[in-house]
């Protein structure tokens, strides 16, 4: 636990909390942690308890499971139900509700061959072991999980594995931040961003400079340990107080300005930008997602199979969209904790452990109750 416990030290946390309290001025600070990993850590360690009341954390859309629109979940279910198809997916996606309460888990119970995997290479292995089946990997995630998908495609090509393809849903972080900043001013005011850790290890800090320079918002890239997050908040408070807007890197132990060039090259080789992609809650965002390049289209499930076009429609009462934009807190959704729970999720934010609703439900509900009483 060396090099981990140090970042969870309660004594240091109290010192950091005092520094933040001493630094804040008489104003509101509203910071968005973009990444669901940060949201999870904030609740799991009880970080909000260590912050002054005028420092508010707004939970961003950086949860790949949460931002996937229902239509993409529906398409995955269509793929899974095709005869001869084995659909491989990361565990969280199994339970995400599609239209009319359908899910991959239910499709599996009804006879579809859906398998939970921990890596893309496991999906490749399943393809090798089942040569008479078509194995489709349901690829989701931000820039962190994109390079492994590229590796899988290259590996399939090298090993001449022809019964393997990718249903690509990889999305990009910077366009999503931009969409939040371009939203009408009255929706949500954000004074700065806690930037994602693992995503930035791949893309570096440079892509965030636009938000500092053109949108005048400070960005601090932070690791996922609780002291990382506290430190980032302190740096953001300082920037706001000094009217600075810069990209600062708290997570220097893993992130460099240029990022991981090898991973970037791999992504550029295999993927290209989609003109537009639908995000749950954020709507269609231009150049915000990746698709497989034509030269690799043999591995693209969307060209390999004939897929129906499914209109985008989110569930009526579910407020995941507003939660993902930071407009409402999970508890403000009428379904939270009653109709929608981790055991029986209505919206995607309640499914993933990185989802804001799940984090609230699992770790933070006592706060809501005490607010109400």
């Amino acid at each position, binding site marked *: 636990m060396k090099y981990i416990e140090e970042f969870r*030290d*309660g004594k240091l*946390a109290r010192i950091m909390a005092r520094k933040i309290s001493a630094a804040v001025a008489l104003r509101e600070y509203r910071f968005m942690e973009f990444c669901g990993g940060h949201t999870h850590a904030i609740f799991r360690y*009880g970080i909000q*308890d*260590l912050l002054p009341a005028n420092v508010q954390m707004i939970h961003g859309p950086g949860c790949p499971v949460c931002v996937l629109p229902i239509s993409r979940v529906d398409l995955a279910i269509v793929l899974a139900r095709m005869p001869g198809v084995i659909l491989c997916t990361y565990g969280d996606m199994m*339970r995400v509700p599609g239209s009319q309460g359908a899910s991959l888990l239910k499709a599996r119970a009804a006879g579809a061959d859906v398998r939970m995997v921990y890596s893309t290479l496991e999906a490749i292995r399943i393809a090798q072991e089942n040569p008479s089946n078509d194995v489709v990997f349901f690829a989701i995630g931000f820039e962190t999980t994109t390079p492994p998908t590229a590796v899988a495609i290259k590996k399939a090509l090298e090993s001449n594995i022809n019964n393997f393809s990718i249903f690509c849903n990889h999305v990009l972080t910077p366009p999503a931040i931009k969409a939040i900043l371009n939203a009408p001013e009255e929706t949500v005011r954000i004074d700065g961003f806690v930037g994602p850790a693992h995503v930035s290890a791949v893309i570096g800090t440079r892509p965030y400079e636009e938000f500092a320079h053109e949108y005048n918002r400070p960005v601090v890239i932070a690791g996922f340990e609780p002291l990382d997050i506290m430190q980032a908040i302190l740096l953001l408070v300082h920037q706001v107080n000094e009217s600075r807007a810069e990209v600062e890197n708290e997570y220097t132990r893993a992130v460099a300005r240029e990022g991981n060039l090898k991973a970037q090259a791999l992504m550029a080789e295999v993927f290209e930008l989609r003109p537009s992609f639908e995000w749950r809650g954020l709507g269609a965002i231009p150049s915000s997602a990746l698709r497989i390049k034509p030269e690799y289209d043999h591995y693209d499930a969307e060209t390999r199979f004939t897929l129906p076009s499914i209109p985008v429609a989110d569930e009526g009462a579910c407020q995941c969209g507003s939660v993902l934009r930071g407009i409402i807190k999970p508890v403000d959704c009428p379904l939270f904790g009653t109709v929608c729970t981790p055991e029986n999720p209505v919206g995607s934010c309640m499914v993933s452990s990185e989802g804001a609703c799940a984090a609230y439900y*699992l*770790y933070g*509900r006592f706060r809501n109750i005490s607010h109400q009483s």
Partner: protein
Amino acid sequence: MESRIDLTHGSGGRAMARLIEEIFLTAFDNDMLRQRNDQACFEVPPGRLAMTTDGYVISPVFFPGGDIGCLAVNGTINDIAMSGAKPLYLSAGFIIEEGFPIDDLRRIVHSMAGSASAAGVAIVTGDTKVVEKGKGDGIFVTTTGIGVVPEGVCISGDLAQAGDKILVSGTIGDHGTAVMVRRNNLSFGATFLSDTAPLHDLVRRMLDASPRGLHCMRDPTRGGLATTLNEFAAQSHIGMLIMETEIPMKVEVKSACEFLGLDPLYVANEGKLIAICDPAAAPLILDAMRSHPLGKDAAIIGEVQEDPNHFVQMVTAFGGRRIVQWLTGEQLPRIC
């Protein structure tokens, strides 16, 4: 004898009789079993009887620190002991998959016999079934136990009261971590052993220290500490506040859980108990626990409080506060 179980071993014929004779009777040997009836008959001691049953499906069947056999004996003894009862007799049912190595079966049965005799409990009746290859996974064991509760002892999950102290008998997460590390063939430069152990003697010592101070007791197996605390909270209609820094945990278990993405609060234990005690009796009970080898790391980790929402809350080591929720979904399949 053949080297593997086949369908004739479950057919009721001569092969089955030989298997019972050579493996089960030799290992579990006692008067009641030797009568070779389909049931065991015994005198019922005075007092309330406690009875429990449990199925064991753990994979792998042999793991560091134990095997499915000793687990099946200790687990059921512990479920009896958590009522304060002295365990007396066990039954054992085996569902074996065709092709299972007979040497492995012998090893498992010997392990059960060893654990039962060490705990002073007799296995007095049993059953063997064989299923076709592919219809089971090696071996499943079911044990049923019966015991007698001493007079004046009243322990139940619905008896926790605000102000009561919450005690845990030792380090948590050892069993589940040992199984997961073995299952994934991981090596962390440390040895992980299951904590499987019979707890009735530890319980006896706690009851000697304070026969009426113990309100609730349970062994946090599947779902771990977090799940057991939530069960008590729901049963007793109370809330709890625990301190993360007070929860005993081995540093290697903490590290392995970190690596495996598990929360040790939800990881199974097989030789630990949680007790909710009257605050006045808690120090006596804690001392009694610490004087027993199976309770040497015992600690008071928190207390019961009034809470209409029945939340289990925790002050984190980091200094914040959060809910410790029921386990959602399955964290670790087939851990016991």
